[in-house]
C-alpha cells in the first residue's frame, strides 16, 4: 500500500504550476471575460505539457496513464482557474477510452492526445435533479439511427468545443447513453447563459430533431454504465479542482493575514484569524485524502468506486464552500471588491460545487452504498 505520489508525479505538478504561474494570471482571466472565452495559447501550452495525452493509451499516441497521475495537476488547474474546457475534455476522454469502439478510439484519441479536440459533456437539464435517471432528453429511433430533441443547460464552453458529449435516454424506458455531436450539427442551437461564473462560458443547448447515427454513440450502443462513469469522472475532476481552488484561497488569505496590520499588529496574529486559517488547512488536507482516493478508485474501477467518488464530491464541495467564504472574510472590504479578484475563485468553486451532483446528492449516495454494504434491509 502506498497513499502518496511518486517523485515523477510531484515533478509533473511542479512543472504545471510553474507553467501556469508564468503564463497565466488573473489579469489574463479578466481579459477572457470578453470574446469567446477560450485562451488558445494556454490550451496549446497545456497540450504541450502532456495534459491531454495522459489518459490516452499508448497505442493511440498517448501516455497511457490514469486518474492518479492526473490528481496533482488537476489541483493545479483548479488553483489557476484554467478557463478552457480542460476538465471537461479529460472527463470525455475517459469515457472514450473506457467505452469507445475501436473505430472511435482510432479516430478521436490521437487527436485528443495532441490537444486538437475540445469535448464538453452536456448533462444538466432545467427540470432534472442530479440523478441520471432524471435525464429526459430522449433519442427516438429514426431511419437507421436516432433523432434527438430536447434541451440541455449549463454546457460549459459549448461554443468553442469541437464535440459535445450528450447524455440522453435512448428510447423511452431505454438505457442512457452518450452521443458525440458537433455544436454546429443541423438542429443544434446554442445560447450563452448568464451565470455566476462568467469565465466558465455556460450554454443552453437546444436540440431539434438532431440526427445521430451509431458511430456517434460512445461504444456504438448506449449503456447506462457509460453515463455513470462520465458522471463519476466529472465528479472527481470537479472535486479535485475545488481542492486546488481551496488551496489557493488559503495561501492568499495567509499571505494577506501576514501583511495586513490593524491595531498595530499583523491581523494573522489574532486568533480569530489564525484559527480560521488552521481550520481551512485541516479541511483542505482532508479534501486531498478524499479526492486522491477517489482518483485511485476511479482509475482501478474499485468495488467502492461510487462511494469513493461521492465522498470526494461532497467533502471537497463542503470544504471549498467553507474556505472561499472564510477567504473573503479574512480579506475584509478588499475581499468584497471586484478588483482584488478573490471572487473569481468563489465563483468557480460555486459552479463546480453544483456540477456533477452537489454535496447533498452525493451524501445520499454514500449512505445508500453504506447501508447496502452493511446488509441492512430497507423497510
Amino acid at each position, binding site marked *: *500500500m*502506498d*497513499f*502518496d*505520489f511518486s517523485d515523477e508525479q510531484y515533478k509533473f505538478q511542479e512543472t504545471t504550476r510553474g507553467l501556469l504561474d508564468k503564463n497565466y494570471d488573473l489579469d489574463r482571466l479578466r481579459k477572457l471575460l470578453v470574446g469567446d472565452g477560450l485562451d488558445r495559447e494556454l490550451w496549446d501550452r497545456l497540450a504541450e505539457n502532456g495534459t491531454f495525452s495522459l489518459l490516452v493509451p499508448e497505442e493511440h499516441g498517448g501516455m497511457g496513464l490514469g486518474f*492518479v497521475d492526473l490528481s496533482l495537476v488537476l489541483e493545479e488547474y483548479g488553483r489557476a482557474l484554467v478557463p478552457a474546457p480542460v476538465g471537461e475534455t479529460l472527463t470525455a476522454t475517459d469515457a472514450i477510452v473506457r467505452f469507445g469502439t475501436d473505430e472511435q478510439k482510432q479516430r478521436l484519441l490521437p487527436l485528443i492526445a495532441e490537444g486538437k479536440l475540445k469535448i464538453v459533456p452536456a448533462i444538466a437539464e432545467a427540470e432534472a435533479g442530479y440523478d441520471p435517471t432524471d435525464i429526459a432528453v430522449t433519442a427516438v429511433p429514426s431511419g437507421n439511427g436516432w433523432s434527438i430533441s430536447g434541451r440541455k443547460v449549463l454546457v460549459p464552453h459549448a461554443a468553442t468545443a469541437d464535440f459535445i458529449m450528450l447524455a440522453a435516454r435512448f428510447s423511452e424506458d431505454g438505457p442512457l447513453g452518450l452521443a458525440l455531436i458537433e455544436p454546429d450539427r443541423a438542429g443544434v442551437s446554442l445560447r450563452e447563459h448568464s451565470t455566476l461564473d462568467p469565465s466558465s462560458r455556460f450554454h443552453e443547448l437546444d436540440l431539434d430533431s438532431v440526427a445521430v447515427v451509431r458511430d456517434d454513440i460512445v461504444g456504438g450502443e448506449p449503456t447506462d454504465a457509460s453515463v455513470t462513469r462520465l458522471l463519476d469522472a466529472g465528479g472527481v475532476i470537479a472535486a479535485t479542482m475545488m481542492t486546488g481552488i481551496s488551496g489557493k484561497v*488559503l495561501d492568499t488569505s*495567509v499571505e494577506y*493575514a*501576514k501583511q495586513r496590520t490593524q491595531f498595530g*499588529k*499583523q491581523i*494573522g*496574529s489574532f*486568533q480569530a*484569524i*489564525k*484559527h480560521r*486559517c*488552521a*481550520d481551512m*488547512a*485541516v479541511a483542505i*488536507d*482532508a479534501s*486531498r*485524502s*478524499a479526492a*486522491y*482516493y477517489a*482518483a*485511485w478508485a476511479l482509475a*482501478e474501477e*474499485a468495488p467502492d468506486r461510487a462511494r469513493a467518488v461521492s*465522498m470526494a464530491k*461532497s*467533502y471537497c464541495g463542503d470544504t471549498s464552500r467553507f474556505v472561499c467564504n472564510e477567504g473573503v472574510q479574512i480579506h475584509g472590504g478588499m475581499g468584497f471588491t471586484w478588483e482584488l479578484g478573490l471572487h473569481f475563485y468563489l465563483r468557480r468553486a460555486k459552479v463546480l460545487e453544483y456540477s456533477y451532483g452537489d454535496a*447533498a446528492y452525493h*451524501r*445520499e449516495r*454514500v*449512505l445508500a452504498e*453504506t*447501508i447496502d454494504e*452493511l446488509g*441492512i434491509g*430497507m*423497510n
Partner: protein
Amino acid sequence: MDFTYSAKDAAFRDELRAWLAANLPAGWGETVFGPEDEDENAMFRLDWEGKLYAGGWNGIAWPVKYGGRGASLVEQAIFAEEMARARAPEGLNIIGRNLVATTLLHHGSEEQRQRYLPKIISGEEVWCQGFSEPNAGSDLASIRCRAVREGDHFVINGQKIWTSFAQYAQWCILLARTDTDLPKHQGISFLLVDMSTPGISIRPLRQISGESEFNETFFDNVKVPVANLVGDLNGGWKIAMTTLAYERGPEDALGRQIHFKQELDALIETAATLKRGKGTAIDDPTVRQKLAKSVVEIEVMRLNCLRAFSKALKGKPRGPEASMNKLYWSHVTQNMYETALEALGPLAPLDGGDPLSPGEGRFQLSFLRSKAFTIYSGSSEIQRNIIAERVLGLPK
C-alpha cells in the same frame, strides 16, 4: 499510489480473521458485549490485550526485536479494517503502546527499551501519563512538580492531574522540574516512575460521563532511580514533544478510527430499526444527510492516517502536521455523536439506565465521552495555534 492487496496481504487478512473468530467470545458484538462495570471493563480490556499478544496481534507495527511483527503499512490498514469489522474490543494499555513505547524508541537507552517494551506489548505493565498539573494544562511547560537529585535517585514532590488509567498503571511517564533557574522549557526532565513506589497516592476524579478514568496523582518524597531518566537531564521538553506528536499522530488515530467506525455502523443499524412514525428513523432525509456526513468524515479519518503513514515511510519527518490530524478527528467524531443523538430523536434523552433506550445507552455515553476529544492531547485552540504558527507561518 496503490491500494491493492497482494496474496501475502490476503493471507494476513485471513489469518487475522480466523484468529478473531476463534478468540472473540461467541456472539461478540451481537449479543455479547464487554462488562458494564468500569473496573471489570478495564480488566476485560487488559485481558483482551494479553490475548492479542499471545496470538501475535498486539503492537503489530513494532520492530520484531521488541516483540512486534514489523507489520507493513498495508498490514496495519488491514488490521484496522478487520478489528472494526469484528467489533473487537480496545486494549487498555493505549498510553503504553502508543506513547511510551514510541517515545522510548526515539529517546530511550537500549537498556530502557529492553526493560520496558516487552512488558508493554505483553500487557503486563500498564502505563499512565503524568504531564498535566492543576496550573499547567495548555501551558504545559509551566509545570511545578519537582525532582531533586539526591545521590543515585531523584526525589519527587508535587501533584499531577487528569492522569488517565493511573489506577490500573504499574508505571508512569512523568514530567518534572529539575531546574527552577533555567527558562521554563529548559528545566524539565522526563522520568519513568514505578507507581508502586512509596509516597504516590491517587484520587479518582468523576468525569462528565459519571465514570472515573482519570485521577489526581500526588507525589510525596517519591524516590526514583537516576537510571529512570530518559535522555538528558533538563532535556525533557523535547522528549515530551515526541510523546505528544505520537499522541496526536496517525498511529493513535488509526486505532481510534476502528472504534468510531464500529460505533457508526451500530448507529446506522440502530437508526434503520428504530421505529419512527410510519417508518424508521433512517427514513428521515435530514438524519440520512447527517449520517452520510459522518460516514464520509470517519472514512476520511482513516485515509488521512494512511496518507500520513505513507509520507512517514518515505522518511518525511514528523512535524506539526500531527496537530492537523488530531484537530480533524476530534471534531468530526464529536459531530458524529451529536448526529447519533439526533438520529435517536425523541428518545435521545433516555440513557443506559432506561430499558427503552435505543442501543442500551451507548450513544449517550459516547456522546458525553466525546466532549474530552477536543480537550485532551492539547485542546483544539492549542492545535490551531500550532497549525497556524508552525505549518502556515502566521505570526505569534
